[in-house]
């Protein structure tokens, strides 16, 4: 790992890093906004469908896709954690501490967001979409 990565790899690595830290949060935000928006507005219009798609199917998609994205972020965070665990920090110029901290934050927060999405999914199994 001592070879110096080229700028493209650094960019990809940097993006992967932020996906690992914030991916779950963004996925959950999308899940919430689409799930809530579709449910409240479709039901307000008295319809059990979004265009040609049945409401329940559309809502399932707003649960499953973000959940998968969060799992991906969780894996990325784990990778980041492993890549930064056994690095010897020689003082100042190896800023691994910061990455390690955020890796840990990423792992935990992705777990939290995954839990929220799964709990929302359980509600989808139990409740009829438009019951008030």
């Amino acid at each position, binding site marked *: 790992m001592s070879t110096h990565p080229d700028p493209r790899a650094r960019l990809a690595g940097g993006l992967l890093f932020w996906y690992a830290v914030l991916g779950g949060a963004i996925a959950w935000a999308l899940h919430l906004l689409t799930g809530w928006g579709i449910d409240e507005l479709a039901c307000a219009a008295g319809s059990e469908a979004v265009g040609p798609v049945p409401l329940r199917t559309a809502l399932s998609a707003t649960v499953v896709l973000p959940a998968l994205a969060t799992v991906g972020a969780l894996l990325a965070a784990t990778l980041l954690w492993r890549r930064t665990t056994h690095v010897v920090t020689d003082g100042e110029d190896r800023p691994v501490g910061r990455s390690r901290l955020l890796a840990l934050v990423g792992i*935990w927060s992705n777990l939290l967001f995954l839990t929220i999405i799964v*709990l929302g999914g*359980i509600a989808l199994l*139990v*409740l009829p979409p438009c019951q*008030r």
Partner: protein
Amino acid sequence: MLGGVLALTGCAGGAPSALDPAGTGAGRVADLWWVLFWISMAVFAEVMVLLVWALVFRRRRDARVRHGQPLRFVAIAGAGIPLVILVTVYALGLRDLVALGDGPGPEATTIEVTGHRWWWEVRVPGVAGATANELHIPVGEKVRIRLRTADVLHSFWVPQLMPKTDLIAGEVRETWLQTDRAGTYRGQCAEYCGTQHAHMAFLVVAEPRREFDAWLSQLGSPAARPQTDAQRRGQEAFEQGSCAGCHTIRGTGADGRIGPDLSDVGSRWSIGAGAVSNDGGHLGGWIANSQTVKPGNFMPPQPVDAQRLPDLIAYLQSLT
């Protein structure tokens, strides 16, 4: 503190307490509350034990700084255990939410309640009349309540029967009531609705089906006719004065739609949606100047002369 909480349930002192539920909906929520209460007490006790332990065994002066970052305790006590509890509680909440959403079937009795600043209009579909601040339900049956508002937001809340449902301007909301215990249950507007939000109470009377049917038929029929001379003079004053412009008394010339229908005003539990009790003195005071009784309400002071006032009171009290 714990003792206080435990003592409290017994001493609600005639309050419309959510912890003394009579309705199916409120009963479920009360059960849920006790689960939450005991879990909370356990968690609170845990925190207090740790805190007291630290305070007793860990006090020092001028101690040296220590380092080290043990994560395991925080992870287990702060995240692991709470996760288990919270998921369980979430599931319980979901179960009760489903139960509360189970409205009555299509053939159920429906009562329409409209919120006004600051009183409740009560109607039954198919029945001509209306009443105010009081609705009756048959014991043992699920009754659909259809909620509208004539002006601002209100919230329909009978703590002993059912959690609240807001009245949303421009929309219709529904809830339901069911109780197996005959009795009267106090309800009150729970969404801030302006000057007299404090005085916007109502009463739910749960009674056997037969009495409920009697209430329904009374709601559909004309008001009682005046029996005495005083009452007759009162009716005349009512119809010819400004009263009739705002209030209805069924079967008379008074058919105003701005204020509450007064056809059964004599039998109501209060004046001004819970502002004062319903007796001659309060009634007279209300007619003369309701602003002193319930400041800010929309009924202007009435220029009734002093001789006519007793007649008016006698008439209104006869409307039962």
